[in-house]
């Protein structure tokens, strides 16, 4: 997955192969840890 230079913890990145969404869990000295992002719920929005 491509992680942009200005990425921050909590940002969502998508896998270009399977399309799954991941949330950036930590950014430590260039090492990025991700976790599976929450799926969209009925109460999500603005």
């Amino acid at each position, binding site marked *: 997955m491509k992680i942009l230079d*200005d990425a*921050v*913890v*909590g*940002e*969502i990145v998508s896998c270009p192969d399977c399309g799954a969404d991941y*949330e950036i869990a930590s950014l430590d000295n260039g090492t990025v840890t991700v976790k599976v*992002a*929450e799926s969209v*719920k*009925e*109460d*999500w*929005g*603005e």
Partner: protein
Amino acid sequence: MSAKGKKSVGILYDRIRWEEKEISRQFEMRGIAPVMIDAKTLILTLDESRYTSLPETVLERCVSYYRGVNVASVFESHGVEVVNSSRVLGICGNKLETSQLLAKSGVPTPKTVVAFSAESAMQAIEAIGFPCVMKPIVGSWGRQVVPVRDRETAEAFIEMRDQSGDSMQSIYYIQEMIKRPPRDIRCIAVGSEVVASVYRYSPTDAWKTNVALGGRTEPCKLTPELEDILLKTIKVVGEGVLGIDVMERSANSNDYVVHEVNGTVEFKGAQGATERSIAGRIAEYLLDTERERIPRIRSNNLP
């Protein structure tokens, strides 16, 4: 105040979008590093002494309405100013409550009826007349918002909702369909000021105008008539950071109706058609030590 005399602020989030990054950047440009609070990681007790380290003011930016409004309520009970307040979030998050307040206060809004069973839903639709629009009372991004053009379509949607097993789906919120041009107007209000107004055009062959669904934006002139209706809406809903959606009954007619107020507004699309930094104005509003503090009136109808 923090030790250096500057206000301490936080951003409550559950996923970081362009907006949260931009607001954070605007705080940093003003010499403030906002505390980023991931609502998904919070374990909140009602012991006030545990929350002395919370910022003085928190901007609520959760994608999940229920999560955001409930965390806001707990934070408020511990003396934190939350923007938007749980009261404002509660009004904006429930379309029925928004419509009630707007209608009662004389703010032009689409004619709305509500029914609470599949049987009465059809009668409600017939009372409004075809075509009409059926919406869930909670939810956003245009999801499950459907145009109902005839009786057969109405029956299909009512049956689908009735069989969903979700009690919220048994609340049938039905509005007249405004014969608007293929656009609506997204307005951003910060405090008592309208900071942006843009047209949102539907994607080709589509009916909905949501930018999340591919709609595009263009600048919209803030006419005195539009500003007047927006200021009335702010007064009714309460100050904070609001996304007020307006429709025109016909193009350039200055005959407006407010159809939705968003309490956790996305504004990337609006920013593309606006010169002034919306995120910058939000940061200034939160940092303004002179403004009157948002009243901590807890919502009495939390979900």
